């Protein structure tokens, strides 16, 4: 029998449905792979029993001839930002250590309802704040990828969905959930040589997802192919009356709608994405991407997104501002850590608890956010940033009169060694320079692996689409996937 951990969502689903193997065999295979990969530190907790129980339920259904669901028999990794009932949910923060929600997030529930099971809770940057997975209280996630120079330096899997990216790339999960606030699905997907899509803002319910920046947070799948992403996104998405920003729209059958023929489609190339400091190999991969899309029948057109340069700084006002308020609830009263120094009062308890519970990057962002909202600075920072956000969105609006989708690099560089940027927050932030504009505009965007660079590290390409046009994004991604033939895998060292 083939190693079941080599299979993705579609292959597992079909194998289980056809009786080639049982869901339990799949779950056992991945449980074992998870257990053997502790060096990656991709999981905060493993939940093998959850995976087995879901698998058994699918096997029972199959025996009865019942419908197995679109994810029937597929065990996945769950980013530890999604509340899972009775299973510790931490957002990779000390302040939530030990927190066991009495509720299940809508997205995770949707996945279980579709027949998926949970292999465990995946490590991430603390409160999803970070681009290297070095801000987790539970330690760095180590990328399964290493440079081809044999130096064995631990590389960053990207962030914030670093555990998700690393585990999919290492073949210890067939797929994982991610969340993307300013690139947190796409950047790690690019670093890890996998596929990840952030849908239109509002497609996936935010109910039960630990909030970072509410106006930007979107969940999405991270998997080994465009097809798998289409299947999993379809299972995750859907209207939720519990989320006032949830889109009240039918979820299309993206899997059935996949079509790599791009004849008649125009793909825009934004000139402002050609930035100083962008790696030459990244630019090469971008050129290659154009060729692939042209080959698929698309017309390549030059476009302009003039406010691109300002998207990242605007993001670093808006996201921290929202976060400073969203994270106020971690106060040691109702759940999580409480630090009550001898003889201290309520407000001292808050300050001590939050000092002990939040990591440095979280503190930095909460302080920035507090500052930009404070009296006298609100208009200069927050209002101005929201106006620039309007301009960024308008840039895209105008672009849609010229093209159907946009091709850009996902990141300005490939993965970097863990620790190499951790003292330099600003350089770290620049990782998301190509990802953030689509986040600010709420647009669907996918990262697809394109090639390995000269260091043997993966590079990703990004397709940004119109609002609600996940199908167009998936299709362009599929066209590139078929031409890139990216089948490189990290060599197993863990």
């Amino acid at each position, binding site marked *: 029998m083939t190693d079941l951990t080599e299979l993705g969502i579609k292959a597992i689903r079909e194998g289980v449905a056809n009786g080639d193997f049982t869901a339990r065999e799949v779950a056992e295979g991945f449980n074992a792979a998870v257990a053997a990969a502790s060096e990656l530190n991709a999981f905060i907790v493993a939940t093998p029993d959850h995976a087995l129980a879901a698998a058994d339920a699918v096997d029972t259904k199959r025996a009865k001839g019942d419908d197995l669901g679109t994810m029937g028999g597929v065990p996945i990794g769950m980013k530890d930002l999604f509340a899972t009932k009775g299973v510790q949910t931490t957002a990779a923060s000390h302040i939530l250590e030990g927190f066991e929600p009495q509720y299940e997030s809508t997205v995770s529930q949707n996945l279980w309802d579709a027949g998926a099971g949970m292999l465990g809770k995946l490590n991430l940057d603390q409160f999803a704040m970070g681009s290297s997975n070095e801000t987790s209280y539970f330690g760095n996630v180590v990328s399964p990828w290493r440079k081809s120079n044999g130096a064995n330096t631990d590389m960053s899997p990207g962030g914030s969905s670093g555990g998700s990216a690393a585990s999919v790339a290492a073949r210890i999960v067939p797929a994982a959930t991610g969340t993307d606030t300013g690139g947190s699905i796409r950047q790690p997907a690019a670093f890890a040589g996998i596929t990840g899509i952030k849908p239109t803002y509002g497609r996936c319910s935010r109910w039960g997802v630990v*909030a970072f920046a509410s106006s930007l947070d979107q969940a999405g799948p991270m998997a080994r192919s465009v097809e798998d992403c289409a299947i999993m996104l379809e299972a995750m998405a859907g209207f939720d009356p519990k989320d006032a920003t949830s889109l009240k729209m039918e979820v299309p059958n993206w899997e059935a709608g996949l079509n790599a023929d791009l004849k008649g489609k125009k793909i825009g190339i934004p000139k402002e994405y050609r930035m100083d400091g962008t790696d030459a190999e990244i630019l090469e991969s971008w050129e290659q991407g154009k060729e692939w899309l042209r080959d698929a029948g698309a017309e390549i057109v030059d476009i302009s997104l003039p406010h691109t340069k300002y998207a990242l700084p605007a993001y670093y006002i808006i996201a921290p501002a929202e976060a400073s308020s969203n994270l106020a*609830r971690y106060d040691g*009263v109702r*759940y999580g850590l409480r630090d009550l120094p001898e003889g201290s009062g309520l407000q001292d308890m808050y300050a001590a608890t939050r000092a002990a519970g939040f990591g440095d990057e979280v503190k930095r962002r909460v302080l920035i956010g507090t500052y930009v*909202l404070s009296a006298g600075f609100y208009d200069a920072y927050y209002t101005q940033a929201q106006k620039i956000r309007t301009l960024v969105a308008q840039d895209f609006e105008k672009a849609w009169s010229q093209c159907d989708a946009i091709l850009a690099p996902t990141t300005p560089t490939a993965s970097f060694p863990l620790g190499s940027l951790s003292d330099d927050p600003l350089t770290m932030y620049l990782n998301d320079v190509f990802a953030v504009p689509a986040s600010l505009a709420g647009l669907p965007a996918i990262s697809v692996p394109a090639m390995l660079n000269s260091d043997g590290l993966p590079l990703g390409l990004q397709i940004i689409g119109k609002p609600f046009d996940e199908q167009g994004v998936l299709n362009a991604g599929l066209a590139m996937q078929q031409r890139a033939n990216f089948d490189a895998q990290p060599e197993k060292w863990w």
Partner: protein
Amino acid sequence: MVSTYRIQGATGEWEVVIGLEVHAQVTSNAKLFSGASTEFGAEPNTQVSLVDAAMPGMLPVPNRECIRQAVRTGMAIEAQINKYSRFDRKNYFYADLPQGYQISQLYHPIVGEGQLLIDADEKAGIPEDKVIGIERIHIEQDAGKLMHDQHPTMSYVDLNRCGVALMEIVSRPDMTSPAEAGAYVRKLRSILRYVGSCDGNMEEGSMRADVNVSVRKVGDSELGTRTETKNVNSVRFVMQVIEHEANRQVDLIEDGGKVVQETRLFDVASGTTRSMRSKEDAHDYRYFPDPDLLPLELEDDFLADCRSSLPELPDAKRRRYETELGLTPYNARELTAEVETFARFETLLSAAALRIGKPEAEVATQVANWALSVAPGVLKSLGAEADPAHASAGAQAAILAMQDKGEISGGQAKEIYEIVLKTGRDPEEIADTEGLKQVSDTGAIETAIDDILANNQDKVEQYKGGKDKLFGFFVGQTMKAMQGKANPAVVNQILKDKLG
């Protein structure tokens, strides 16, 4: 004409400037942003959803009824309704605020400028009607409750109230005496209860006021520094707070001190205010639009529904009672002040008019006098003997009808009503069986009068000679002979006929 309320200081006369922020709990079944119940008095933390407890990942979804009630309230104070409004977060840390922010409306409130009329009340020092400006009404979440006396070193937190919808109704600093402030709160409460957007129950905290007070020398145009006394929960206390704060501030300034802009608490026992320590450094609330909620845009249909569902409001009702029903201004005001009063009155009026067979306007004064003085008097005199459940509109209308027809006297009406309240018996049956009826039988009265005239020939002569006052003597004698049960109108008529 302005209020003459003054504080006599050592350095001269001071006037007081008052603005009120009234927090009124919106009448709704469920909370503003969650499905938990709003019912009062439940066991601690039993009416708390995961949303109210601010569990990680929880999100607010607004309750339409709360929006609707705020809009209707705005319409009732003739305010501008903002078709576009937003919810903002007001950020501060406190144990009764699980989210670490209160969802409120700062930048774009749902209701803009409006006004409220307080009625002249000479006795209270309000010489004429006065319009008080209302700056805005916004919707916000209530906080939870802390108990400080249950444990030696801990405070206990109950989140049942947390997330209940409030309307904050912000007045202009247009009031200049405790009496005006009291009248404002009473009138506002009356309007809210008419509209049905708040039950106005101040004891249960459904309505409470933050009282902003400043003082200035008479003639000064600049406003003084104000203090805000929080959560004052009765009209009397609002007035006490103003008295106390105004005097405290005058004393402070005259002693060379300065009023500090601060939040204060009212101590009911001593009738004084004190600085509130816990809110000292919470002044930078870092308001910003709540990113979990989109802008609230009201459709025309929704607004039309809000407007068409508004009842007749106190001012309009009072005018109508005066002009259409012919009631005195006093009666009209008394009857329209409270929802229960006018509701009882209108039910009785309609029943009485039907029973009597006359238009409402013709019987309104009679019914108003009954409702405002006669009936409450009887009820009060009976005390515990009365069962208010027997005070049905039907029974009272029957009594009023008998009285209108002259079948019973005013005194008999009271006696019958006493028995009704004690026993619930039918008024007409009481009148019959208890002999509580006037005699209108002209035959019996004529016989009695003939006897009296015959026995008092001298007085008849004197009367006919011009001594008109003797008419009363004949009436009295007749009533005596009839044991008080003769219909006075019939007696008068027959006497007039016979005496020529």
